């Protein structure tokens, strides 16, 4: 079984079609699948629904797919960094399904774990809970009934994910907060394509340090990443 591909375009070959649901990893611009997003742009596939915590920024990350109008609908928790997004949304060109951030992450994990739905307190009594089934469970401190809403698993057609390192069997290691949504996004796709900074030989990753086992990974590419920083914040040395 050969999981390693030459390029992002090669790795996505045969996987893209109009109207599909794509789950994408990343938080802000941290840990986003830059190379795969570019290849999706190049493919010209359209009417995409994309489940991703954020929508990139203007001209970078998923923002590129917004510029080309390839996205029909976003499932996100926060889209505040993208003016083109706002323009399309407010003009009605783009659908937006807001998900609380933890609900979005759990919905992705659930899809990848064969959990069709789960009950969470998050969003009960708010707009997010409207139209969703409500159930009570005796989970209060003294067994009082508390209100939960039903959220459904996300079962994506394709996952696009960024990791730090992979071996050729697809075992993945992430780095610091670039892990974020990548493992749950990877889990919920029928097919999962991963871009990494380095493909290492089999046996060079400690089996206890693997963050996502290769069973969740179908195709891998290695490439150069811009890794743009959204907000550079620093302190002066004299403050230390």
């Amino acid at each position, binding site marked *: 079984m050969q999981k390693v591909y030459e390029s992002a375009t090669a790795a996505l070959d045969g996987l893209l079609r109009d109207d599909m649901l794509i789950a994408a990893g990343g938080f*802000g611009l941290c840990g986003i699948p830059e190379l795969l997003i570019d290849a999706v742009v190049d493919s010209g596939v359209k009417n995409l629904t994309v489940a991703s915590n954020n929508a990139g920024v203007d001209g970078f990350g998923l923002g590129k797919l917004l510029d080309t109008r390839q996205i029909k609908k976003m499932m996100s928790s926060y889209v505040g960094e993208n003016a083109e997004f706002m323009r399309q949304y407010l003009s009605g060109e783009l659908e937006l399904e807001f998900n609380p951030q933890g609900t979005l992450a759990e919905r992705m994990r659930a899809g990848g774990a064969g959990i069709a739905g789960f009950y969470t307190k998050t969003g009960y009594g708010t707009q997010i809970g409207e139209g969703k089934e409500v159930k009570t469970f005796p989970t209060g401190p003294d067994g009082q009934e508390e209100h939960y809403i039903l959220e459904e698993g996300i079962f994506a057609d394709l996952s696009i994910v960024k990791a730090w390192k992979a071996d050729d069997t697809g075992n993945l290691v992430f780095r610091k907060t670039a*892990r974020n949504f990548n493992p749950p996004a990877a889990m919920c796709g029928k097919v999962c394509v991963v871009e990494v900074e380095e493909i290492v030989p089999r046996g060079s990753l400690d089996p206890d340090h693997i963050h996502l086992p290769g069973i969740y990974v179908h195709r891998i590419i290695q490439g150069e990443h811009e890794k743009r920083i959204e907000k550079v914040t620093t*302190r002066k040395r004299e403050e230390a």
Partner: protein
Amino acid sequence: MPWDRNQMAERAAQELEDGMYVNLGIGIPTLVANYVGDKDITLQSENGMLGMGPFPFEGEEDPDLINAGKQTITELNRTSYFDSAMSFAMIRGGKIAAAILGAMEVAENGDLANWMIPGKLVKGMGGAMDLVAGVEKVVVVMDHTNKAGEPKLLKECTLPLTGTGVVDRIITDLGVLDVVEGGLKIVETAPGVTEDEIREKTEATIV
């Protein structure tokens, strides 16, 4: 004289006890970290980190190490990283002792609105709904009134809710109020601010 932003943050820091795991929202809540002093506080960043450290020195920014506000930060010797599902598992599961958040409106029953103004810019709730649903103690830090001088502590919120009955304590520029049976209770006033002034600038029932 009412508290300024830093004084509000300093006052909010008094809510934190040794050993607590805490999530700080964007804005004034972020400043709270400057006032924890010697207390052993572990800061959670909901993008997947416990043990958030200060901003990096210039030139040492790491694009793989940001906080929930997308700012570059550093790690500590207690830090752990995890994915977003695990991050919100601990939030939703009640493992975070306290969250300090900003607010647009708070109602006298503890309802909170802090994510959306219909018809205006819609950015999203991020992790706020999960935090208020899951965290043990929710402390809100906010201006007592809006720029027009109108109350933001209301009988009922007018904006879309972030959570119902979730706020425990409110720290404003004028003082500290708790959400109790029947309304809000004044716990403390800023220096030179009277309880009457707070009552006057509050629509919510003061008990």
